[in-house]
């Protein structure tokens, strides 16, 4: 692959372009000197088969399916976080607030208001409330974004922390929207006869709740991931990265700093809003305290552990950290042999000592610190290093033969 790239920079190839007047010649030139790698159809088909087959094979495995669904939902938000922090370099701890905004937009637009309760609910279709959640969160991002223009580094982090605390206050006081301290339930998507809350059949096939959510989320995540990847390979994406690497130089190149930063903010918070809507819907019920600083920190942990400024890193990080709680459950006694691999963790509820949920948070924080100290490039960098080592090893073996 590297060899191909070198070919295109070759001096001969450049002079070829000038003489390629004939369109047929030009097309032939483009075909032989492609800069962008050709799509590898074999891999793409492989992945499509895996993604589609997964929920069908594990149709009754609730744990695996819920990890996949939550992981993919969180991946959408991590992509948003990565746009802001990984690509544009604007460190923020305000993601939890935007998730909450998205969730409550969804709740108000899609929820039902039963008699006797003050909860607002307009009972719209999910085809409206999912985009609306992104839209409202994006709008609020557009209001907050200009604030970010004046602030850098620490100041921005402090401002976003303040935003989260103010958001928590709003969420716990707007009782009509959020249900106050008691929390509220969130709507499930509904498509004609098909109810996502209970599962249903499409044609002759029956799908349960988790499978339906799985396909819905996959249909959202894949275009979002491709979109982010393509944007980051474009002029706009390079502008984001230029702002991250050196603001003054970026401005000198003619990049509009204000517009780029606000765009990153809007983009990021819109994705967070969408995640909030999907997450709360799959969770069914949530209290206002959920959308706090710790939630924001989880997204930071995800993109650092997965890999900053990397689309696949965000997705891998989201899946890994969503699988972590289940893995802990499995290793602390919920396995077929009933063995607790971590004797210092108690799985009893309400007991003093390191409960599984605390152990979970502990692992989160530990992983965050370990990755920052030893591998700031995240999981994706480890993967690349292993890949390169493997390639070198194979290449030397081939030479020896």
């Amino acid at each position, binding site marked *: 692959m590297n060899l191909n790239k070198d070919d295109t920079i070759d001096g001969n190839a450049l002079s070829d372009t000038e003489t390629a007047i004939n369109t047929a010649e030009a097309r032939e030139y483009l075909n032989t000197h492609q800069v962008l790698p050709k799509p590898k159809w074999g891999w793409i088909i492989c992945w499509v088969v895996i993604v589609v087959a997964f929920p069908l094979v594990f149709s009754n495995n609730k744990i695996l399916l819920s990890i996949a669904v939550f992981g993919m939902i969180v991946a959408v938000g991590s992509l948003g976080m990565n746009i802001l922090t990984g690509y544009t370099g604007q460190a923020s701890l305000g993601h939890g607030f935007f998730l909450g905004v998205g969730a409550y937009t969804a709740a108000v637009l899609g929820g039902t208001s039963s008699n006797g309760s003050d909860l607002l609910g307009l009972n719209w279709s999910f085809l409206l409330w999912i985009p609306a959640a992104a839209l409202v969160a994006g709008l609020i991002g557009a209001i907050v974004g200009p604030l970010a223009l004046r602030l*850098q*580094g620490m100041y921005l982090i402090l401002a976003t922390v303040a935003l989260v605390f*103010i958001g928590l206050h709003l969420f716990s006081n707007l009782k009509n929207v959020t249900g106050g301290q008691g929390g509220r339930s969130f709507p499930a998507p509904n498509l004609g006869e098909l109810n996502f809350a209970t599962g249903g059949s499409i044609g002759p096939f029956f799908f349960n709740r988790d499978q339906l959510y799985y396909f819905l989320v996959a249909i959202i995540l894949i275009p979002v991931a491709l979109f982010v990847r393509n944007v980051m390979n474009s002029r706009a994406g390079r502008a984001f990265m230029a702002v991250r690497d050196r603001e003054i130089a970026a401005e000198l190149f003619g990049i509009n700093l204000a517009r780029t930063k606000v765009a990153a903010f809007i983009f990021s918070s819109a994705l967070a809003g969408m995640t909030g809507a999907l997450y709360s819907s799959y969770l069914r019920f949530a209290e206002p305290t959920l959308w706090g600083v710790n939630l924001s920190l989880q997204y930071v942990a995800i993109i650092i552990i997965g890999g900053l400024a990397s689309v696949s890193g965000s997705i891998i990080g989201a899946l890994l950290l969503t699988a972590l709680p289940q893995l802990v459950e499995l290793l602390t006694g919920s396995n077929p042999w009933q063995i607790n691999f971590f004797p210092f963790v108690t799985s009893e509820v309400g007991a003093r000592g390191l409960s599984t949920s605390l152990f979970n948070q502990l692992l989160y924080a530990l992983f965050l610190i370990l990755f*920052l*100290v030893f591998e700031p490039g995240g999981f994706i960098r480890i993967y690349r290093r292993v890949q390169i080592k493997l390639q070198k090893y194979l290449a030397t073996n081939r030479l020896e033969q």
Partner: protein
Amino acid sequence: MITFLQLLISGLALGAMYSLIALGITIILQAGILNFAQGGFMLVGAYLVSWLAIEQGWNFFLALIASLAATVIFGMAFDRFILSRLNNQNQFSVLMITFGLNIICEIFVQATVGTDLRSNGDPWGKAGFNIGELRFNLNDLLAIGITGILLVIFFIFFKISKQGIAMRAVALDFEAAAAVGINVWRVNSITWGISVAVTTIAGVFLAGFPHSLEPGLGNAAFKALPALVLGGLGSTTGAVAGSLIIGLTEVLVAGYGETVNKFIPIGSGVQAVAPYIVLLIVLLVRPQGLFGRKGVERV
């Protein structure tokens, strides 16, 4: 009027406690690190005092000294073995590491002691005296007094002592300080030691009457952040002034919030967010704060 004066006293006391935390953060901030783990250190320190004094039956002051020693060593070790490894990395990584440590401290306390409310183990408890209708709690007065004494010591230490001058030199330019023969690692360790010690003292006072010790205490360190920005990030005078304002704001809002709520719907529990609203306003109107210099960037 009596209510107002009463609120004024407790506001000043709260501000004094915040200013100890804010001062601790400021010292480390001058070395270029915004420490989110300050709350975690405070929590561990205060719980250690309480555990030694109540469960182990130690004298309170002995417990305090032992706890100070333990947390100071903890803070120095954190700086030496973790933070100094990534000296040349960006601000964001360092900040997130301290945030991670904060969570680990909270979990440690919850796992070992539990989430129940408990006493901080101080011998004065709810002692105090009345002047007219005004009530003076000993805890509040001690907090104000000790903060005042510590502040004076600090200013003398920073302006006059050799160590203090070395600390300022390291804050100004790490490499130049190393070049003129200052042992920067030792100076950094001392910085962390002082910062953590001050914070532990603040934690003990914060858990005194009328409050009690609980795992949520660590959040008080978050309230020192608005105080820092209000005073100007990196300015010691600013940290103290900002903390007093934030402490007063919080207590006054708590006292008059219900009355205001009848006219303007601000919701209940506004005192918890009032500091952050102040923070946002300051960042929008005057990002350098009250005492900060314009254009100073510790990014």
